[in-house]
């Protein structure tokens, strides 16, 4: 005797009906559709510390690229069946094709390695969730509602599972669909397990499987054991490790890419645990989440929204409100028709952020083992276990500290933000010091496990992941960001290919804006890569290619632009100028100087940029003071608008005004310009001048004020009176110490 219970994966309605059916006809053996080699994990399922959502992780210990997950939520029928069996001491067996054989089939088919997906994800919608498919045909947006309407209404509570078998038998017969080989092999294996169980003397076997497979198991007599064996021929069992890992609602959701997932785990959980008042609970959650975001949401509104959702369902002749009705009701009652507040909480509301728990005494995956061993060897275990954040100061010249920095950066690459760098200066590659804030949160475990799919060790996973991200982008700025990350994380083997990609992207980009955005970062890498023992020759080569292109393109790029972009270019030119100065040895600055010169003299260039270039040329001694004076006089000539003169000054005086103090000629020009300006214009440009002068240090401004005063009362010869204003006697007291310091005695 055996019973087939065709269920919907992760269907709370199914789970409830299944439990009811099991209570009504207690089995003496439970067969569950899950890979047979996951069975060793079963013994832990009764562990009191294990809290769903959890998943069985199946992986080949020798080849970690072969891994598969088998997730369960509290409301998954399979999970309920397992718990039911374990609680009553009934043997629970997994009957699906062992994962090792599925890996093998995958490999045979592909002829190449790839990460196999959990079996149920490869199937077509009608096979994966036939009832969802039928629900859609019946006009239900949500298959749980269809289940509710079809099977869970009072008066329908007959033997729903025989109805399901009939439905699917009809579906499979009528559709006449050619099953995939994968499915046929799986079903053959399931039948084989079922036959074995029956031969083993069990009197009342309960089989829990996806509804699509129910007909294939129900008509056992129609299939010959020898045919099944023929199908299974050539597939060998291999050792596969199975362990429990915490899972999350996010990963269970269809939206996260888990194709056998459900749209709203949070809603399904409510439907399972609080079926009667699920709508009220849902609205109470909406109110709570909205309040957390700072909106007004009262209990009375939750009540009204629940009522509206139910009224809506009634108008649409649905037995229960679905997610659609609830969203519309929440929109009308809580949000005054604005979608934005709901969007803010949507993910938390619909998917939920529950994470499962797996106790520490259950075996772990390799990446976790590698991480923990590295943590131990770097003596970070205390920070790792600590519940409160810790700060750590690293000196990268020490080997141990450099390793810690690499590990933390590698984890960051893998999106495991255990450590955050504090006060990162712009050129942090140049620093020997790093300040970290370490805080390990329990949900990072799942990130480690997620990262487990990229590699066995933290280093190899980070390498693989950074390469994957690089493969997904053509954008220069993100590639350069990745190269920086790779350098910080000490992933040298990913670094060089990245530089190649950057080279390609740089030669394709037409906009020199991006090149100029990139150059300072590259210069940082080239200059300071050494502190991290990286080979940066390729970066130097790249810079040698990029810099000339910038020099050629820049003069045209700053012609006839508005003030706002001009400020952006201003920032870039300043950064690039610094970068080019830093790279002095390998990059001849001559071409850059010529470029600056071209811009400084170009009438169409924005005055802010012209001013800046003139200043840089002066600073680099490329222009002698008289030439600078000439440019300044030209820019400030009365024919021009006062506005553009002021902008030129702002660019010219960028950073420091000392040269105004030291070069009386320049000062005189400025003085003259201001003095000759009509009062109306002066009012207009005053704010601009203020901005230009505001960045100078107070002593500089003090000196300028003095200069300006003196300019007005010309004849005052020297300011000896100011200089003798100190106490000679007290000043002399310092001299012995100064002599001592200078070693003059």
């Amino acid at each position, binding site marked *: 005797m055996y019973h087939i219970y065709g269920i919907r994966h992760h269907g709370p309605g199914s789970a409830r009906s299944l439990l009811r059916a099991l209570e009504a006809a207690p089995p003496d053996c439970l067969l569950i559709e899950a890979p047979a080699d996951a069975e060793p994990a079963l013994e832990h399922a009764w562990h009191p510390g294990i809290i769903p959502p959890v998943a069985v992780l199946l992986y080949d210990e020798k080849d970690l690229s072969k891994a598969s997950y088998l997730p369960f939520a509290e409301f998954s029928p399979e999970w309920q069946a397992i718990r039911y069996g374990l609680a009553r001491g009934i043997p629970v067996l997994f009957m699906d094709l062992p994962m090792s054989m599925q890996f093998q089939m995958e490999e045979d088919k592909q002829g190449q390695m790839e990460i196999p997906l959990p079996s149920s994800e490869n199937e077509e919608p009608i096979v994966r969730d036939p009832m969802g498919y039928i629900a859609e045909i019946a006009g239900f947006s949500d298959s749980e509602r269809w289940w509710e309407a079809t099977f869970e209404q009072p008066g329908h509570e007959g033997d729903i599972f025989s109805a399901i078998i009939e439905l699917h038998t009809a579906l499979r017969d009528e559709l006449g669909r050619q099953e995939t080989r994968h499915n046929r092999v799986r079903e053959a294996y399931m039948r084989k397990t079922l036959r074995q169980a029956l031969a083993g003397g069990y009197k009342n076997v309960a089989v829990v499987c996806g509804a699509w497979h129910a007909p294939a198991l129900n008509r056992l007599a129609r299939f010959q054991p020898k045919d099944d064996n023929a199908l299974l021929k050539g597939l060998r069992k291999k050792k596969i490790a199975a362990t429990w890992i915490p899972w999350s609602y996010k990963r269970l959701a269809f939206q996260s890419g888990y194709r056998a997932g459900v749209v709203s785990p949070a809603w399904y959980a409510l439907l399972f645990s609080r079926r009667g008042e699920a709508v009220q609970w849902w609205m109470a959650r909406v109110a709570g989440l909205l309040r957390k975001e700072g909106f007004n949401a009262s209990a009375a509104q939750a009540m*009204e929204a629940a009522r509206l959702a139910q009224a809506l369902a009634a108008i649409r002749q649905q037995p229960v409100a679905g997610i659609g009705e609830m969203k519309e*009701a929440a929109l*009308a009652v809580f*949000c005054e028709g604005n979608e934005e507040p709901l969007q803010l909480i949507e993910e938390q509301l619909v998917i939920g952020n529950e994470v499962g728990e797996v106790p520490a005494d259950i075996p772990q995956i390799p990446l976790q083992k590698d991480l923990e061993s590295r943590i131990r060897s770097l003596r970070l275990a205390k920070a790792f276990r600590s519940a409160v954040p810790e700060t750590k100061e690293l000196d990268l010249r020490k080997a141990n500290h450099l390793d810690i920095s690499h590990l933390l950066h590698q984890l960051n690459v893998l999106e495991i933000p255990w450590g955050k760098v504090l006060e990162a200066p712009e050129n942090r590659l140049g620093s020997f010091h790093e300040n970290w804030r370490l805080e390990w949160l329990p949900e990072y475990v799942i990130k480690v496990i997620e990262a487990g799919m990229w590699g066995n060790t933290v280093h190899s996973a980070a390498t693989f992941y950074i390469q994957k991200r690089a493969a997904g982008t053509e954008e220069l700025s993100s590639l350069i960001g990745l190269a920086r990350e790779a350098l910080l994380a000490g992933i040298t083997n990913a670094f060089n290919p990245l530089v190649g990609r950057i080279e390609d992207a740089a030669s394709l980009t037409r906009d020199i804006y991006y090149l100029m955005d990139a150059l300072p970062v590259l210069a940082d890498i080239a200059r300071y890569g050494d502190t991290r023992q990286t080979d940066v020759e390729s970066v130097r080569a790249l810079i040698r290619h990029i810099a000339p292109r910038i020099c050629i393109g820049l003069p045209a790029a700053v012609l006839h632009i508005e003030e706002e972009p001009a400020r952006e270019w201003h920032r870039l030119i300043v950064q690039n100028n610094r970068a080019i100065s830093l790279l002095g040895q390998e990059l001849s600055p001559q071409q850059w100087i010529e470029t600056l010169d071209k811009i400084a003299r170009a009438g169409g260039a924005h005055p802010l940029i012209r001013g800046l270039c003139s200043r840089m040329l002066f600073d680099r001694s490329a222009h002698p003071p008289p030439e600078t004076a000439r440019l300044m006089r030209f820019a400030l000539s009365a024919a021009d608008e006062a506005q553009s003169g002021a902008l030129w000054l702002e660019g010219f005086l960028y950073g420091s005004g000392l040269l105004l103090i030291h070069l009386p000629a320049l000062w005189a020009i400025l003085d003259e310009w201001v003095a000759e300006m009509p009062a109306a214009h002066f009012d207009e440009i005053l704010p601009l001048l203020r901005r230009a002068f505001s960045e100078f240090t107070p002593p500089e401004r003090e000196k300028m004020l003095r200069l300006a005063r003196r300019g007005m009362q010309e004849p005052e010869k020297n300011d000896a009176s100011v200089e003798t204003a100190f106490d000679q006697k007290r000043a002399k007291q310092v001299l012995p110490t100064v002599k001592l310091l200078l070693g003059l005695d």
Partner: protein
Amino acid sequence: MPDQTILRPPAEESYAKELEALRASDSRPKPPNWTLSPQAVTTYIMGGKLEDGTEIEPKYYGSRRLIEVAVATLATDRALLLTGIPGTAKTWVSEHLAAAVSGTSRLLVQGTAGLSEEALRYGWNYARLIAEGPSERALVPSPVMLAMQQGKVARIEELTRIPSDVQDALITVLSEKILPIPELHTDVQARQGFNIIATANNRDKGVNELSSALRRRFNTVVMPLPATLEEEVAIVKNRVEQIGESLRLPPAPAPIEEIRRLVTIFRELRNGKTEDGKRKLKSPGSTLSTAEAISVISNGQALATHFGDGETRAADIAGSLAGAVVKDPVQDKTAWLEYLETVVKEREGWEDLYEACRELLD
């Protein structure tokens, strides 16, 4: 038979036949004091065909789900607030909802800045008040009070234009469903079926925002602008035909090509980009709602009928079109000129429209 000389009879009269047919075929449970079941109300608004073959004309083109939310709200005891920019059929929908739910859309309060509390509660017949002292006979009930007494739906137009302190008079009515009359030591208790549909537009500045206490008593439904060009063209065509009938214009087919062009122009200017999404445009400050498109077309039709040969052409709509777009003589005019020169001029087959519009601008 409705009086033919009435310019625009209320919904329950002009659609009396449809309502009667719906009532006759309606077998679903009705909330107390409703003339139709919620499903039938939805059918009345969205249109459809009844079992007896009666064709129900759609009154609202757009999302059925929105109307369902509105009807469900009226079926619970929460009041309904329809908001949206001007010309999104708020008043139109509220009128038809009231007509379908209560059989009358005439319990109406027109919200204005000068509205006093009496208009929402009750006033006094002063002659009688002085002669007889306070009595029920001296009381002049407001539409809201009548709706409470009769268990019907009252409508409040432009709720946000009503001064805040007057709005507050609604709070007790909505939450306690009771209207105290302290002068007579009595009160009016609302009968089942009483509810309020308010409309408010969220575009105008200087309106009186609802207090959160009042807002809390309303379910809000935001009426959107038509989602697609086809939908909007259908709305304009439909309404233009109806207006033509009531203005006794000689029956002429709705100028579908002109409507399509006009709606395209409105949508493009409103969205600030061309329909093919290739070009960005300046948006004028004017609302450019569907309702305005309707009035531009029927204006053009009237022009063509009385001054032209009866066929609506570009020249007939150009005048009111420019009037609808250019509300601000400086900024809107630049936007309109730019649009004419960059989009209309280049579009194939639009030369006549371009000429007509240019002529008016010079």
